[in-house]
């Protein structure tokens, strides 16, 4: 019947044409790479035929044809043969149809695009849910034909496309797209894009992703083509707690030392201050440490806090902290996922030594307007998203702010009278789908903090960035992304203790980046990535100005610093055999520190200090110092069995900008410094080996990773270094060598009523600073533990689901106390006792143990209601253990006293109300 229909129409046409007088049914034309639209235009111009067609279907057709006085039907036969299109002629109308339109069942797209019109009258209880199930079933039962029909099923073909959330139209990142026979799979990238090269023929393509319903598509693959799949959110997010699609990825995936966290996983974890905080979640992963509780400074595998590349939609974030680090600046409502790379870092990333923390926000809902928000004791947040043009353009807006100032204003105790603390952050993004092959993403972000702690000194800082991305799919095997980003971080300190000394000090860093990346999938065994990027840095390291009319402060402006970092890279993933895969990449970075700038020259052979300045060299706008080098990246994966693998990786990273801080934790007044003629770029090499095994049908994952790292030119400081407004920082900064090594063990149960993970990490990180003179040498030039050396760390994260609506989570965190410099002697000077300190970091503060719990109660799960809401009750530091934040000694009234300071020393209960509509 199906096949006969066109024939029937054809016969009708023949009969009709004989019965009616017509101008003509023949055309003459030359088509060269013409669109179908142009063909239609020609036909309508030369004949009386009017064509009805859907341009969205036919825009992928290109026509190369020369016809002379030929029947339109025969022309259409030529154009449409081998495609999925058919034509039907009725009187003067020609209808172009896709084959499946004449299926007896209505197609999935029909519902998807025009749901409201086609919704049948609810004459019986036909719920949304059943409808969706039916739609899903339809889609799964249908056979999708990819490419022109042919009998030749030799060789392979590539299908590519985007996996989207059927409800919001958002791309789904990290979804697994695979066929089981033969076992070939891929996962979607940050655009939800995948590319799969399969033998031609019939396949069942399966799609799995966290928190989404599994689905599959039956595919008849004739040639390269496109398959977009919409998948449905699992209504109860508690059902799948941890990334299911990543379950076997840990074993079979190429990447090692990488952790991917989905916002849904993160939202399950107990919260410190009523907010889901990605930085706090990242801290529970093996190999990630922090020096001070409540700070966002991450120390990844023995790296310093400034060695992490934090990307927010590809733009660099310089200070991811709010309120001294008790919050991170990422609003949980707009986040999609976070990836942390600790080793085996691909060649596309560069610029920092230790890790890459890649944060992605969601795309706005393409289908309908929706919002979500939450209220906790300290902050309120709200986000709104929706389509601007349905199914094409969407926006996402997020805002979060404290109302602590408002509270402080109402409490007039002496301690708080002159205190002041507030912050907010804003996120906005627009994504626009130009067509199937072109997408544009625009994202902006801003955070601002202001605080004053019972003093006359006020601090404020702000981080903002913007990124614009254009993704273009050339064909199913090749796509490219052009990205431009801008980041700006600045802070200001104002002090008005006395009008004469009142001052304001500003610091600012600006960064522009442009990059182009391409992903090429030549065949099933190879994936090639390549790209180039240019980054321009512009720093104003200090601007000290009088504040107020009476101030007599002398303005002091440090010279601006400029630098440019360029890089090209290429990387290839090669599946040599099903068991053995290799990734090899090379990045080459080239950095120049630019003038105009004055540079001091120091007398050789004596300690570099102010008194040894010999002369000053004035540089023009040309380069002052140039550094460049190759950064090889290499990984191997060998599958020992279906559920076990062995991986090895080596990578070298180079870093040309460093944060200088001689406080142990990240402070609001830390400055960034570009590499120059004295401060050389940091270079880090890391070797790591890992063993991965899944047990009980992938329910339990076990991994063991070991690493060894060497760092050249890490920054270290002389005792008593002063970093702010220092015109000759090189006199206070020392180049150190670092080494770090460790073993990370993790046992993870990803599914089931009880799920979670336990990890143990043994790690050491040491620095060695051996200068030419004693004052440029620390601890007699021997290796000493860095401030973030915490050898033993145990993390336990557990979730237990009592029911779909009721979930209990618990964290237990243990780590060795961080190293500190303790006094070893005391002495009398001027009638007061003073202390004399040991070698740097020779002792440790007491060990750290903390337990947190949280209970999540979801509102009822009626699908159709105004808003979904949930309550979270959490207790941070359940046992109120007084963990040491620092240990210090002071001279008071001539005597020495030692103190242990704890923050969060008592249990902190919080209640958060979250809603979503």
């Amino acid at each position, binding site marked *: 019947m199906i096949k006969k229909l066109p024939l029937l129409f054809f016969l009708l046409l023949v009969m009709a044409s004989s019965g009616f007088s017509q101008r003509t049914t023949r055309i003459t034309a030359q088509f060269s790479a013409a669109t179908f639209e142009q063909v239609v235009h020609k036909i309508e111009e030369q004949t009386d035929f009017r064509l009805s067609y859907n341009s969205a279907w036919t825009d992928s057709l290109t026509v190369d044809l020369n016809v002379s006085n030929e029947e339109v039907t025969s022309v259409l036969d030529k154009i449409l043969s081998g495609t999925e299109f058919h034509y039907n002629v009725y009187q003067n109308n020609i209808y172009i149809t896709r084959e499946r339109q004449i299926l007896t069942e209505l197609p999935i797209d029909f519902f998807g695009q025009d749901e409201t019109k086609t919704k049948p009258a609810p004459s019986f209880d036909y719920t949304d849910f059943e409808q969706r199930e039916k739609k899903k079933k339809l889609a799964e039962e249908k056979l999708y034909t990819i490419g022109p029909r042919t009998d030749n099923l030799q060789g392979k073909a590539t299908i590519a496309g985007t996996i989207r959330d059927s409800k919001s139209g958002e791309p789904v990142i990290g979804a697994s797209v695979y066929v089981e026979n033969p076992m070939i799979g891929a996962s979607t990238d940050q655009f939800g894009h995948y590319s799969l090269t399969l033998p031609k023929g019939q396949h069942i393509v399966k799609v799995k992703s966290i928190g989404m319903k599994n689905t599959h598509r039956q595919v008849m693959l004739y040639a390269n083509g496109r398959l977009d799949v919409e998948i449905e959110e699992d209504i109860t997010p508690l059902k799948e707690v941890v990334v299911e699609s990543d379950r076997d990825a840990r074993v079979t995936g190429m990447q090692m030392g990488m952790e991917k966290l989905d916002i849904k996983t993160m939202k399950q974890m107990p919260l410190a201050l009523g907010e889901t905080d990605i930085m706090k979640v990242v801290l529970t992963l093996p190999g990630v440490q922090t020096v001070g509780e409540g700070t966002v400074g991450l120390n990844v595998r023995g790296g310093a806090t400034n060695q992490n590349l934090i990307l927010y939609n590809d733009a660099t974030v310089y200070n991811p902290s709010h309120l001294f680090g008790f919050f991170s600046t990422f609003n949980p409502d707009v986040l999609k996922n976070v990836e942390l790379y600790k080793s085996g870092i691909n060649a596309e990333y560069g610029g920092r030594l230790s890790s890459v923390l890649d944060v992605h926000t969601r795309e706005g809902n393409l289908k309908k307007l929706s919002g979500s928000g939450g209220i906790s004791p300290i902050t309120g947040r709200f986000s709104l998203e929706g389509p601007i043009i349905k199914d094409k353009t969407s926006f996402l807006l997020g805002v979060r702010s404290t109302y602590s100032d408002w509270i402080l204003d109402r409490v007039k105790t002496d301690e708080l009278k002159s205190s002041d603390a507030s912050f907010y952050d804003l996120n906005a993004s627009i994504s626009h789908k130009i067509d199937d092959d072109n997408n544009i993403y625009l994202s902006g972000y801003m955070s601002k903090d202001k605080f004053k702690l019972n003093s006359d000194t006020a601090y404020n800082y702000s981080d903002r960035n913007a990124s614009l991305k254009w993704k273009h799919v050339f064909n199913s095997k090749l796509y490219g992304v052009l990205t431009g980003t801008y980041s700006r971080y600045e802070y200001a300190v104002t002090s008005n203790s006395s009008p004469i000394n009142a001052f304001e000090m500003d610091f600012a860093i600006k960064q522009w980046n442009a990059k182009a990346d391409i992903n090429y999938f030549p065949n099933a065994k190879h994936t090639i990535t390549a790209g180039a990027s240019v980054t321009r840095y512009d720093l104003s390291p200090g601007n000290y100005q009088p504040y107020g009319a009476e101030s007599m402060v002398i303005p*002091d402006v440090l010279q601006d610093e400029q630098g440019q970092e360029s890089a090209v890279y290429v990387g290839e993933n090669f599946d040599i055999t099903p068991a053995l895969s290799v990734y090899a990449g090379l990045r080459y970075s080239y950095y120049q520190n630019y003038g105009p700038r004055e540079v001091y020259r120091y007398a050789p052979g004596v300690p570099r200090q102010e008194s040894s300045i010999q002369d000053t060299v004035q540089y023009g706008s040309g380069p002052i110092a140039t550094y460049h080098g190759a950064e090889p990246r290499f990984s191997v994966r060998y599958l020992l069995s279906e559920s076990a693998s062995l991986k090895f990786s080596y990578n070298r990273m180079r870093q040309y900008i460093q944060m200088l801080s001689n406080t142990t934790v990240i402070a609001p007044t830390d400055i960034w410094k570009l590499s120059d003629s004295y401060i050389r770029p940091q270079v880090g090499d890391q070797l790591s080996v890992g063993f991965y095994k899944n047990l009980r049908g992938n329910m339990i994952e076990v991994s063991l990773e070991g690493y060894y790292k060497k760092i050249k030119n890490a920054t270290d400081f*002389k005792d008593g270094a002063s970093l702010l407004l220092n015109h000759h920082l090189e006199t206070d900064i020392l180049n150190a060598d670092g080494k770090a090594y460790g073993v990370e063990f993790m046992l993870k149960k990803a599914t089931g009523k009880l799920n979670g993970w336990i990890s143990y990490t043994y790690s050491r990180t040491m620095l060695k600073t051996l200068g030419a003179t*004693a004052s440029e040498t620390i601890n007699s030039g021997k290796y000493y533990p860095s401030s973030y050396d915490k050898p033993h760390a145990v993390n336990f994260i557990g979730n237990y689901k009592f029911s779909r609506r009721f979930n209990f989570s618990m964290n237990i965190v243990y780590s060795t106390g961080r190293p*500190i410099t303790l006094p070893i002697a*005391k002495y009398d000077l001027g009638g007061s006792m*003073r202390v*004399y300190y040991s070698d740097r970091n020779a002792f440790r503060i007491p060990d750290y143990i903390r337990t947190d719990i949280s209970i999540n109660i979801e509102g009822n799960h009626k699908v159709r209601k105004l808003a979904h809401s949930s309550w979270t009750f959490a207790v941070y530091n359940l046992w109120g253990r007084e963990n040491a934040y620092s240990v210090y000694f002071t001279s008071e009234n001539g005597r020495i006293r*030692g103190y242990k300071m704890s923050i969060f020393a008592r249990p902190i209960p919080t209640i958060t109300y979250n809603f979503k509509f």
Partner: protein
Amino acid sequence: MKSLYRYSLLILLYTAFLTGCVEPYAPPAIESTTNYLVVDGFVNSTDGTATVKLSRAIPLSSTDSPPPEVNATIFVEDDKGNRTTLQGDQTGNYTGSGIPLDMSSKYRLRIRTVDTKEYLSDYIELKESPPIDDLKFIPRDNSISVVVSTHDDTGNSRYYQWSYDETWEYTAVYMSGLIYVDGEVLTRPDDSYIHRCWRTLSSKHIIINSSEKLQEDLISEFPVVNISKGSQKLFIKYSMMLRQRVLTREAYDYWEELQKTTENLGGLFDPQPGKVTGNIHSVSDAAEPVLGYFSGGSVQQKRFFISLRDLPDNLKAYQSVGNCVQDTVLLADLPDYSPDFNELIGTATAGPVTIGYTYASKSCADCRTQGGTTTKPEFWQ
């Protein structure tokens, strides 16, 4: 709603606004060599004297006081080859006077200890201090700040250091009018009253400030010390003798660093403390730490007084009786009276008849128990 504020506030307090979670900490016992030489030296160009105190550092856990370093030989040398020997005593204090100090010369210390080690300081410049322009107090919310102002039109001073002796007058809660001598009760003689005392303390903390970031070499109302409302110092009359010196840039850096690492710790963003060593070095072993500093120059001083009546009304406070009580000892019980712990106040009468004496504990009736002396200082007015 009110409880919500309170609750939210609690959370804020917990986090950082109050340092409520600070408790004493005893460090692990540390075994190491700690008997480093400590030199506290100053040459005073105002009166041509030199004072050097030598002592040794002791382990942190030690409860002894640092031992003085005695019998060392100390010279003050100038860069023209002149030198003066200082005289030492048994407390580790070495002094010299009548030294012809010349502001254009540079000076250094040479120390030979009894264990035949020799130490040498860097050459120092003598710094002339400008006079103290003003010394006064400023009332704050719940305390007063004693503030100093000075300036130097030549702009050569820039780095200032102050130290002070503070003296205050106070009384015991009760006035003892009687005295118990060998079982007899006598009227207290005028010269042995123990009701009114004067106590003097020296500054212990490092007080420095600099005008290096200012257009003019000017220190304006820099707080030297804060005295809280209700302090015994302000009950009657308070006096401060402030001394002002000018430091070299190096000396200022030294004191600032010492202040940072031994006084100003305990914040959220403390710098990592490190070794602070001054300008004295061992001649034979460059790696041997020598603590302390040697500096010199002129000293300016100024005294001022604060009487109770000078204070604004909201800061005036008076001595309270506290836990002090008066008790009565009957004449018959007098043999059991313990004069070591108590002082007699007056007579207890029943009508016209003396039946005994009132008394109070020494801490309530003898002002000397609180650290002062009954001798009125000569400068008191």
